[in-house]
């Protein structure tokens, strides 16, 4: 974990209420896709946890949806402004068990952490498929970014206004060696029921600290109580109590 000031280099809207922010700073503690950072936003007491979308050199990319006070305020920040960032939080995805044909399943703002994961899995020589689900065409983002990594990318929308009509579970490939999922809990539960290999899920919870001190985000698992922020946010399929 590291606390550092990052400078915003860009902050732009990429879908309905969804923003991509790029920041430059000390990213040395951000090591594994699926980890998150915790941003201090002026005037708000608690930090805002946001998963890492990409790391490139000393540039950190985050994607967030402006839905509350903190994220609205973040969406109004501009290049040149600085943000206090706690980085290197959470366990991240285990890439070593991906097999040669890993499947990435993302829903809405659960898609971002899968981007860096896809990049790393492709670099490791794997044949990666991504199924990305959104509500509607106006919500879709990063399809081209996944495709340009060489990832076979399938996009679903609940209303059929873009890509396959339906949910991510309507577009899963027949064969894959392991899956990685991130998205809203109903989607994760559907993925849990409709997948046949081992896999990993990234969870979300309201957090106090983001680094394991306050027990604000605990959950029950097969192997006991876990803190989403420190022992997660990624849990293995076999650990989950559903």
């Amino acid at each position, binding site marked *: *974990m590291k*606390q550092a000031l990052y400078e915003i280099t860009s902050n732009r809207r990429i879908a309905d209420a969804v923003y991509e922010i790029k920041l430059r700073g000390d990213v040395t503690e951000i090591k594994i896709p699926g980890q998150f950072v915790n941003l*201090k936003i002026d005037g*708000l*007491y*608690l*930090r805002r946890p946001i998963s890492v979308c990409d790391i490139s050199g000393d540039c950190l990319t985050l994607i967030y949806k402006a839905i509350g006070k903190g994220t609205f305020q973040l969406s109004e920040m501009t290049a040149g402004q600085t943000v206090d960032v*706690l980085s290197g939080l959470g366990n991240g995805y285990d890439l070593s068990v991906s097999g040669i044909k890993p499947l990435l399943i993302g829903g809405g703002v659960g898609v971002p952490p899968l981007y860096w994961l896809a990049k790393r899995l492709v670099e490791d020589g794997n044949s990666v498929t991504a199924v990305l689900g959104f509500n509607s065409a106006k919500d879709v983002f990063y399809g081209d970014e996944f495709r340009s990594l060489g990832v076979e990318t399938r996009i679903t929308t609940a209303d059929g206004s873009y890509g396959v009509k339906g949910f991510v579970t309507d577009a899963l490939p027949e064969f894959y060696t392991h899956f990685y999922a991130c998205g809203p809990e109903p989607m994760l539960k559907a993925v849990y029921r409709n997948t046949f290999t081992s896999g990993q899920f990234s969870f979300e*919870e*309201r*957090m*106090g*600290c983001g*680094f*394991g*001190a*306050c*027990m*604000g*985000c*605990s*959950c*029950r698992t097969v192997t006991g*109580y876990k803190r989403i922020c*420190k022992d997660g946010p990624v849990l293995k399929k076999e650990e989950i109590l559903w």
Partner: protein
Amino acid sequence: MTKISLCGITIDNPVIPASGAFGYGREFAELYDINILGTFSFKGTTLEPRFGNETPRIAECNCGMLNSVGLQNPGVDAVVMHELPELKKVFAKPVMANVSGFSLEEYAAVCERLDGVEQIGWLEVNISCPNVRGGGMSFGTSAKQAAAVTAAVKKVTGKPVIMKLSPNVTDITEIARACEDAGADGISLINTLIGMRIDLQRKKPVLANTFGGLSGPAVFPVALRMVYQVAHAVRIPVIGMGGVSDADGVIEMMLAGASAVEVGAANLVNPYVCRDIVKNLPAAMEKYGIENLEDIVGIA
């Protein structure tokens, strides 16, 4: 001089991370040498392991936060067998053990179990947790019950017993006096103030537990007032806490009557805050013309 004496044990400075905001020390020991602290109060520990309340357990408000963790902890045996040996590797000072319970017998059993642990300097007995039913705060809102817990605990331990009080009472000085009369060696206050938030989208309480404990800078003036009142009402040492997040806050609490000061919520926002407070204390003392911190306790 930042050294102070707390119930017969001298500590290097009055800065003490508060229970519930510092776990059993491990997460922070990864960030800085926690031996620079006066001590710290570990996570509220009960006889049996507890999961606590359902999530969401955290809500935010202007200048503060609410929590309804509900005393999640691994139970006293796991603390003694696992957490404390781990802590010993990174913390060489006496630690403050925060204890909670749901009956007089449970409070006594936990304290008895911890009494034999050399690493523990003080027992901070939490009779003020607002997030559990049938225990915690129900003991801290009645002078008679508070005295009963104090007496039960004193019977089983030779370590200094510090009773941690709830601000959710009509007259906190009455409870503090009852604890003192029952043999308490110190008083710490305040635990969190009961509050709530409602999610405007869902039109339901944010916290799964509906209510939670308010902490952070928002509570500082309330805490300061209660520390002042209690310090004037008892002769035993008082530990002040509630919304402290910098060296000035520590000094203000001490002027109100605190012999030492706990820092809670601020650790969650800035994990280095207690390191920074310890570092900044000498300069703050110089700024306000203070030579010995012990000399300013309660002089306001």
